[in-house]
């Protein structure tokens, strides 16, 4: 092989090495075990999944909605006159306290009391 062909071969090997090194380095920007860690190593390699709950950025205040008062039971005398014969004395059902849901509102949003439920449907 003549000398010029060897030179062309050497230049080709150099060009291929340069291209290969460039493509490899650009394809592998981060090596966790490399001694020198560039700033790109501080970024995650894979995009993180979006968090299920968005993080609030504005100040919040918690408002407890107003609940209608519990139904009052009429006195035994009134019930007796309305229902006829006197029923056997029974204890009024005790209402278990339920946990009141809390609503989180952004600042500047006003909370209003819920209107009373009125039944308009009749059959």
């Amino acid at each position, binding site marked *: 092989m003549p*000398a010029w062909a*060897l*030179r062309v071969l050497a*230049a080709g090997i*150099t060009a291929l090495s340069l291209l290969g090194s460039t493509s490899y380095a650009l394809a592998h920007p981060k*090596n966790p075990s*490399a*001694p020198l860690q*560039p700033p790109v190593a501080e970024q995650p390699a894979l995009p993180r999944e979006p968090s299920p709950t968005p993080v609030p950025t504005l100040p919040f205040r918690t408002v407890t909605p107003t609940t209608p008062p519990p139904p009052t039971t009429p006195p035994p005398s009134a019930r007796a006159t309305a229902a006829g014969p006197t029923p056997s004395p029974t204890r009024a059902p005790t209402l278990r306290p339920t946990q009141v849901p809390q609503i989180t509102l952004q600042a500047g949003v006003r909370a209003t009391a819920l209107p009373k439920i009125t039944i308009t449907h009749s059959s």
Partner: protein
Amino acid sequence: MNDLTFWFLARITGLTAFAVLSLSVLSGEALRTSVLDFLASNRAIRRLHDFTTPLWLPLVFAHIISLLLDKTAQIRPIDVVVPFVNPYEPYFLPIGLGTIAFDIIMVVTVTSWLRRRMNNTLWTWIHRTSYIAFVAVFFHAAQSGTDFDAPLVSAIAWSTAATLTIIGVTRIVWGRLPA
């Protein structure tokens, strides 16, 4: 310019410089052995060996300049010429090996340009230190290089170094091989 530009440039030029320096050592060893006799005459291989210098020289300088400008590497100008003074404590040995290799190959290159004005025996012994420089380059790259523990790069680099070592040992033990 991006902060990572010089870091990428240092890696790319370092990898390519290692490949071309390997080619230079191979062609130099082929002059004293007959491993490339099947490919070309000794005169043609000698021209190839001379031709590799302008190939690896700009790559080595680009590698050093990139590291000087790279904020991550934290290489100072004095670290380029004086070995083992860099403050990069855990890796001062491999970086110092790179400095030693650079000093040696610069001396070898300059003395090659001044060969006609030098004693031939002195020039020969100075030129033989390029083997030490290549060993230093290899361990500099293997210990402080970003990509040399990657399987692909590591396989190519170690096989290249093993081949050059076998040829060098063959040259020392048996001299020039029969053509």
